[in-house]
């Protein structure tokens, strides 16, 4: 018996544009809150003074050197993970896919583990390079082995992730110093990353986001299925390879600078789909805005939840994101890919 799904009703462009503007306004508001709220209370006027007329006080340093870079990081990482999630769900045609399924996260973790054992993680730059190298290597292996079909790709990613996780875990258990070094990186967090070199990864994320926008129209055809895409004249293999490169850059750079924050890449595409429907270009646009909103809100939460210290943002995205995802699915039903 064959089940025929009706094509999802696509919201009108005007509605999409209006909601995107609303989302951008919310993003701007959340970014302002993110710079203004933290473990150390600073009056709004002092925040403004720190941003536009600093006098070298402790409050100025907190705003300019801790909160502002952190907000910028949240925007970059959130957009990268959200858009990577859209791309991976589109090319795998799997609503449960997220960037980590291609081995990006475990590849980075594996490289950090080996790098710690070799003493290469003493600096932020060293850690960053290792994480990027691990992500790229893992994705290249997954692509080389599983490029035949989306299912094969996902299965290869899962298998490689399992192997790398096992080897990493074994190494960390055998070497307590490596375990200690790894734990700093492994908890996905935006805290304490402000000293890491951010320019290059954020630049890479920016370029990959532009690439995602350019590729999104062709991905629209792939989203209809391989046969339909071919009949429309799309080069499915080339489009899929291009998407994989973008996913690797986006998720690899985000994971390298913030550690593994797994849930954003899964939730954001689902939330974006509520408004964007099945249009990949609109999905990319919405994910690039909703990802930062989710991460900024979670990051503010991570700073104020405990009386002293912080909760890693990856915990907050999970606690915040999971109910939102369940609510969205129950409220609207799972939107078809």
């Amino acid at each position, binding site marked *: 018996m064959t089940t025929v799904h009706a094509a999802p009703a696509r919201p009108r462009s005007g509605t999409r544009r209006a909601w995107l503007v609303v989302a951008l306004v919310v993003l701007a508001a959340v970014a302002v809150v993110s710079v203004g709220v933290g473990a*150390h209370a600073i009056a709004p006027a002092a925040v403004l003074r720190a941003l536009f007329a600093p006098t070298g006080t*402790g409050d100025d*340093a*907190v705003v300019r050197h801790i*909160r502002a870079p952190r907000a910028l990081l949240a925007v970059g990482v959130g957009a990268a993970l959200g858009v990577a999630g859209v791309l991976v769900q589109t090319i795998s045609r799997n609503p449960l896919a997220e960037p980590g399924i291609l081995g990006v996260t475990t590849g980075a973790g594996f490289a950090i583990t080996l790098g710690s054992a070799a003493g290469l993680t003493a600096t932020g730059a060293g850690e960053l390079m290792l994480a990027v190298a691990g992500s790229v290597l893992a994705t290249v292996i997954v692509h080389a082995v599983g490029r035949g079909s989306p299912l094969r790709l996902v299965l290869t990613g899962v298998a490689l992730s399992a192997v790398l996780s096992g080897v990493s875990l074994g190494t960390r258990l055998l070497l307590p110093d490596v375990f200690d070094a790894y734990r700093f990186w492994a*908890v996905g967090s935006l805290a304490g990353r402000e000293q890491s070199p951010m320019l290059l990864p954020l630049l890479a994320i920016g370029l990959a986001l532009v690439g995602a926008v350019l590729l999104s129209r062709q991905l629209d055809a792939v989203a209809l299925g391989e046969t339909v895409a071919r009949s429309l004249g799309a080069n499915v293999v080339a489009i899929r390879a291009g998407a994989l490169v973008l996913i690797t850059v986006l998720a690899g750079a985000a994971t390298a600078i913030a550690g593994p924050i797994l849930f954003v890449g899964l939730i954001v595409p689902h939330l974006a789909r509520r408004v964007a429907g099945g249009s990949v270009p609109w999905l990319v646009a919405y994910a690039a805005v909703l990802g930062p909103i989710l991460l900024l809100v979670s990051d503010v939460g991570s700073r104020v939840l405990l009386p*002293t*210290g*912080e909760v890693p943002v990856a915990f907050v995205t999970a606690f915040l994101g999971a109910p939102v995802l369940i609510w969205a699915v129950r409220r609207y039903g799972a939107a078809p890919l």
Partner: protein
Amino acid sequence: MPVPTLARVTGALVLIVGLVAGCDSGAAEPAAPSGATRVFTADNGDITIPVAPKRVVATGYAVPALLEAGAPLVGISTWQRGLPMMSAKDRAAYDRLAKVAGESAAETNYEAIAQAEPDLIVIGVPKPVLADIDLDRLRAIAPVVALGPSLPSAWRDLSRKQADAAGALATFDTVRAAYVDKTKQLAAKYAGVLPKLKFAHLGAYGEVANGNFQREFNGSWGTNVAQDLGANYYGEVKVKGTGSKAVSEYPSIEELPSAFAAADVITYTVSADGSVPKGVRYVLDSELWKGLPAVKAGKIYPLRYTEAATYGSAMATADAADQALAPLLTS
């Protein structure tokens, strides 16, 4: 002659039941100490132990304490964190002795402990960690005395109790007297300087993670020996916890200026080789650190050997603190 299948299966079942019954240690009787005994109060209750044990197994914090006290050890757990602070004699003994457990309580090797044939087992792990150890199984081998750490500065009392249980108080008291003499001399040397200053300490242990720092107050690992020299680490934790959390906390890096603003002097933990641990390096590289009054005044000093948990190793800590704080005498 072929054996019928039913008979073979029955035989195998009987054998398995017999083996399982033989392996069951849950019903084993506690080992009774031989010779003169006494009742010793430990974390696990009142325990009857030999007055003069001849073969002692030590784990956790009891390892450095009993090595230093010259107890008759026949087996120990590994204790990597204490190696840089051990004397050559203690280190040789550490290397020579059989390792019957790893760094964590879950790595206890019960067979190796049984093979060592101890007449006393001294467990030096915190109370909550005792749950990871099968005490019944150990009790079947020898009397078990659990004496674990509470507050960091309580190592003084803890190591004495451990030495007492192992019948090694004589050497212990000699080492303690040497420490007391040394710190008295150093306290006299710094009497005109340290008591007038407000100290703060940046630590490197426990829950140090990205974006936070460890502030240690009086009675913590990084501060308790410097206190014996006369330093006073002002303030107290915002939310009092148990163990080390009663005397140290992990605020966000944003709170660094307010936490250390009133400090005249800031000390910070470094590794035994003088290298700066990652969590401490993060704070030292922060722009917020550079704006602190004590940092601007150049009153920041690294402290080595802050993990000392015995009087012998604490003498190395006291020497290191003396070396670090010496500039205060001339400033």
